[in-house]
């Protein structure tokens, strides 16, 4: 049922840009994708702070859309013996992120910041 979640009446339901960032970070991290690691990836990529509130509510939203799967992992000593919320991107998530990237790439073609970086018309 979740396969067509981002197609409804032939209208593409796009990902939000923050959702895309999280999906991309989680995919890059692979088996090591969990809350704090994804947060670090997003912060490194954007150069701005990513709050735990934004991260966890977005993870819930992505899970509800069927784009990721989460589960509680093992506890580790460097986390004070507390468990991690592990994240895995699903096939639907990969498809949604691919389409988002394709749409952004397509719509960006020929605009000033992609052709001549730093120049404006």
């Amino acid at each position: 049922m979740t396969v067509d979640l981002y197609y409804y009446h032939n209208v593409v339901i796009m990902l939000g840009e923050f959702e895309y960032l999280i999906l991309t970070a989680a995919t890059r991290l692979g088996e090591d994708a969990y809350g704090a690691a994804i947060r670090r990836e997003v912060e490194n990529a954007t150069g701005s702070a990513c709050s735990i509130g934004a991260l966890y509510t977005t993870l819930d939203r992505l899970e509800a859309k069927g784009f990721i799967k989460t589960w509680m992992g093992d506890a580790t000593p460097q986390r004070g013996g507390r468990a991690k919320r592990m994240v895995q991107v699903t096939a639907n998530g990969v498809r949604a992120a691919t389409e988002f990237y394709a749409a952004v790439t397509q719509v960006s073609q020929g605009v000033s910041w992609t052709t001549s970086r730093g120049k404006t018309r």
Partner: protein
Amino acid sequence: MITRIFWRLVDISSGMLDSAEREAVRGDLSESGGTGSQALREVLGLVIRRQAALWADWRPWLSLVSVVVPLGMLLSIISRSTADLSSVYIWMYADNLDWDLLVSRGFWYEFAHCIPIVFMLYLTLVCWAWTAGFVVAYVSRRVIQANRFLFCLMLLFGVLLAAPKYLEYYGHYVPRALGLPFVPNLNAPVFAQAFYRVILPLIVQAVLVAAPSLWGMRWGAKATRLRPLVRLIACIVAAATLASMVIQEPGFWLFLRAYWRPGIWQGWQMHLLQFVVYWPVMYLVAAAIRRRRYRKAVLA
């Protein structure tokens, strides 16, 4: 010291998250190695987002308007009336104690008569408050953390502002509107003292209403684990207890114009209701016995 306070606040506020999320978030915070104030900001941000998402639904609003606010107000009025009534007895003995009276048999006879009255007044109030907390938690399990806070806020508002205003209105304006003769307040010297007018009602509200309500909420939140039949009985008894609370409120009878109906307090239904009110005592005793039996069975 301040860092420890911040981390303690992080512990308290993360209690509003569900257990798995709390575990993951506290782990993430430990791993990121931020300060206590940063951790607190992060956790509060998540808690606010979670609560806001829950309150986007209509059900929490319904439980707030139909249960939390009316029960908070009603309890505040009854608690204030109870505090005022017990003030007179306490004033009589605490402020007017004459050591010569201690040898009088009449003094002890009267004292033995007053103590059970005040005790039963307080016990009844505790049972009503416990039941109110139980019901609030049962009907709003998902937003119980927010409702716990809102209920306490309601009790504070009730005891400081709403209940005194309501009782003043009830005592002064309603008899006048009904054309009843003016009766001066014979207990005015008691309430001339700030302790009986302000402090005692606050103590009664905190100790006999707020604390039992919070205790009842803990049990109400767990009530879904009860067997269906036990849950049904608990719901019926809780509803009867709340009904008895409503009809004890002075304005209710005035509203129905039934206050002077002869024999209304002597019916068997009233006696049964007054007995049912003490159900929290029986419920807690039964739960303790059950827990003890279960522990014995596990150890055996």
